[in-house]
């Protein structure tokens, strides 16, 4: 599903990732951990096609991300979902409009969009807020909407970068549960976090990074 071969990335001379090799199988739950600046976000960005590695190769669904044309990046992203700490929801738009956006981009019909959005909102428990504008939602609700938008396209891979960074322990637990249920349905999950509660709760494969190097790769709870 995802393979990294000796990947290195620098930002203006500073090393973000150094000689990282990985293999992630379909349907796996991978937790990327490590302190701030360890290279977790860079790794996700490379898989997402937002960055190009300075060295090494990245294969995502047998496509080499290092050599992908910029015009193909949007189509790669349509096979993935992305959840961020700061939600990245469109302000002044309703919950429904935000979740429907990936489907509009793909040119899905109105009836198809409505059906899929309702299913996604139901999965994250936000169907009752579908007409509410996103800026009036609480942090936990915004993150649920963000997850609904990430999964509405039925992505093969779901990438999440510190998705519980702004949430209290109870909300963190609820969001972790959501990710678990999405992964249980067969979606490959890569979640970057330094929250031990999340790592313990998810019971997935833990990849530890520090200063851009891969320190350990273990299945903590099997």
């Amino acid at each position, binding site marked *: 599903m995802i393979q990294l071969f000796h990947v290195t990335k620098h930002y203006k001379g500073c090393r973000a990732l150094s000689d990282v090799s990985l293999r992630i199988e379909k349907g796996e739950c991978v937790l990327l951990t490590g302190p701030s600046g360890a290279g977790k976000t860079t790794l996700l960005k490379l898989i997402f096609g937002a960055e190009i590695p300075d060295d090494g190769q990245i294969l995502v669904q047998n496509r080499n991300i290092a050599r992908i044309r*910029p015009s193909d990046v*949007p189509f790669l992203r*349509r096979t993935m979902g*992305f959840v961020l700490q700061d939600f*990245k929801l*469109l302000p002044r738009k309703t919950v429904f409009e935000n979740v429907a956006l990936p489907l509009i981009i*793909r040119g899905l019909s109105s009836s198809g*969009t409505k059906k899929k959005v309702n299913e996604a909102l139901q999965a994250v428990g936000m169907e009752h807020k579908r007409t509410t504008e996103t800026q009036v939602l609480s942090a936990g609700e915004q993150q649920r909407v963000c997850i609904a938008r990430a999964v509405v396209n039925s992505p093969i891979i779901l990438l999440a970068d510190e998705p519980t960074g702004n949430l209290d322990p109870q909300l963190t637990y609820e969001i972790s549960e959501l990710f678990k249920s999405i992964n249980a349905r067969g979606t490959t999950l890569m979640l970057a976090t330094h929250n031990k509660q999340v790592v313990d709760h998810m019971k997935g494969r833990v990849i530890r990074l520090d200063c851009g190097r891969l320190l350990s790769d273990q299945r903590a709870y099997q």
Partner: protein
Amino acid sequence: MKQFAYLLREALTSLRANRTSTLVGVLTTGFTITSFGIFLLLYLNVQKVVGTLQDHVELIVYLKEDFSSEEKSQLERWLKQEPSVEEVSFVSKKEALEDFHHQFPDESFLLDGIGGNPLPASFVATISPNSNSATFVSNVATQVQELPGVERVRYSQEWVERLTLFVSYLELGAVIIGLILCLASITIISNTIRLAFFVRREEIEILRLIGATGTFIAIPYVIEGAILGIVGGGLSVGLLRGMFEVFLQKINALGLIGGFPSALEFFPFQTSLTLIIGGMVLGCTASILSVYSWVRVRP
């Protein structure tokens, strides 16, 4: 269809959200097209007048005070035999005086002090439109001038040619000024769109995140530019119409040259439409130029 509705809605939302820059964009396009339109209006009307005059080039052959009937007949024969002459008419001294009184009733007193009729008899020869080049008419005039009984020959072609030269300068001026104004307008609309793009950069980042192509991101801004151009173009056509009507009223009030105002015409519908479409093209070009550099970089 759903995609287009979404993109159109986004464009309209952006126009509403950035009212000041929208207004600046509309006014700039309007000003550009109005300035260009003034030139175009002047050019088309002068060209029309020139065209009308060119079709009616006349050679006026004034006879000497003491011309004989034989000289008159010989001259008439010569003119009628000349292939480039379409029609010949004789204006006697009496008819010339009557024409003067008729055309300039307020100035009739000028002739009272002179006594008698100072106006000469003349032949008016209408030159065929196929033979009305300045050189050709000039040659005919020279030959006529040599005939007995001829006092002076005058023809309108020379200043028609000058007017034609003026029209060509006007044409060149319109093209140069039009280009400069178009560039200015493209720059300003382009900045308006860039500002809208900058204001919404976070939304653009989100769209990229969820797999929107550069084209999908750019289309609302191109629509925005097109709307700015169409509204600006419509505004300029309205302005030009208003200015044209005021100009006609002023001309009428001043009592300038009889029949002149009725000869002036506003643009036909197709030209007005072309100006509005021109505004749209201007707006689209400006938008494409401003968003191209943003969307072509790696997402």
